[in-house]
């Protein structure tokens, strides 16, 4: 988004402050990415999080929820996010199967006891 005052500029991150409302900045990004299928908007309590799930050179744009000034943080690096989410999701697969394991073990034990009683 043009204009604004750059407050941080590193190889991984750019932060810009705008003297605009959150709605105005959000409207700009929404119209800019209207045609893109790989952009997801998430409405969080303190900010709006825009995530690229395609192949754009940036990973996320965060728009703080201010009334008069808004900070927009553009993060270039997606690797922290990718590795973090992949690790979590791999653990998630274990958790799903672990729950199934517990469910099967418990039901197996109950069934064995019931059958033993019936005998």
């Amino acid at each position, binding site marked *: 988004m043009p204009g604004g005052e750059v407050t941080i500029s590193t190889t991984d991150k750019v932060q810009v402050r705008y003297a605009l409302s959150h709605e105005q900045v959000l409207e700009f990004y929404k119209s800019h990415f209207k045609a893109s299928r*790989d952009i997801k908007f998430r409405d969080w309590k303190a900010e709006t999080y825009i995530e690229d799930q395609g192949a754009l050179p940036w990973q996320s744009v965060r728009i703080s929820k201010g009334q008069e000034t808004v900070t927009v943080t553009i993060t270039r690096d997606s690797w922290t996010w990718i590795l973090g*989410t992949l690790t979590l999701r791999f653990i998630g697969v274990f958790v*799903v199967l672990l729950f199934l394991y517990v469910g099967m073990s418990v039901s197996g034990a109950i069934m064995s006891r019931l059958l033993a009683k019936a005998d």
Partner: protein
Amino acid sequence: MRIDEVWDLLVGTFYTTGIWAMSWKYPVMWAIAFFFLYLAIVKKFEPLLLLPIGFGIFLVNFPLVPLMGYTEEGVPHLIQFFYHYGLEWEIIPCVIFLGLGAMTDFGPLIANPKTLLIGAGAQLGVFVTFTGTVLAGFTLKEAASVGIIGGADGPTTIYLTQHLAPQLLGPNALAAYSYMAMVPLIQPPIMRLLTTREERLIRMKQLRPVSKRERILFPLIGAGIIAILVPAVMPLMGMFMLGNLMRESGVVSRLSDTAQNALTNIVTIFLGVSVGATMHAEKFLSWKPLLIFGLGLVDFAVCTAGGILTVKVMNLFLKEKINPLIGSAGVSAVPMSARVSQMMGQRYDKKNYLLMHAMGPNLAGVIGTAAAAGMFIAMFS
């Protein structure tokens, strides 16, 4: 009739043929189609799918054939129709899962539920390949759909790819089914590399008998837990568990029989030919399909290694050791990879019967791959 009228007629007739629109790309695609038909017919590698896929590739790679597009009035062509309702609507993979559920005996998994963890460990390659695929220049959604190939579960691969990256449906499905057929070639060297002779000789205790009540209860518990934890994948797993309940209840044998045979056979035809038909020369002849085949192989290898390593870690804590050769069966490819475990076990000890033990992680692999697919769908929703 004048000579110029005859000439016009001849030229007009010529332009209704496909000859004038031929290009070098079509013979290349015919060669690819013949290669998969050769694998199916001569080598008998996954013939039920590679034959219709191969022929689907062959059929659509002629100029002007009205098979995979729309008429001027917007009516879908024949295979486009199958593709639209079967794959775009994600119906066929779910119906195939219904049939698979009806064919599956969960007894070995119920008797030894800790093998479920092997099925989870064998998903390692799915996540590792995701990273490699992103590095190779694919988008995140494409990377997820390529990563799932290593799970060695065709319907799940198709389901996830159609969901996230439909443009890769043909190469992904083809890579998944090709490598599933090549499990006996891919897995043994990795199994030898990651296990010691002593480990390969481990004999496992015979599995306990499983009661009918437990078998009936399993699809209900399984569906309930998966629905709560990974709801995104319930179209697949719900159908899978329904098929299994139909089988185990014993009260709807006609339905179970139809799901196992007639229904699965019918949808397999439409699935194969539709997947093959997505591979038109204009879309397929690029660097991406080649990379998908390369990454798919790495994926399979890492998934196999993940299953074996999970068993090794589990053995550190278990009194009754598990033979790590059954870890490789944690990739789905039911029952091929379980057979590979049995074959490898018998190579070192003729009286070591690992097949039923390997069926546990094999079935866990199906659930694990579906769970991983659910994780990816959730990631992008």
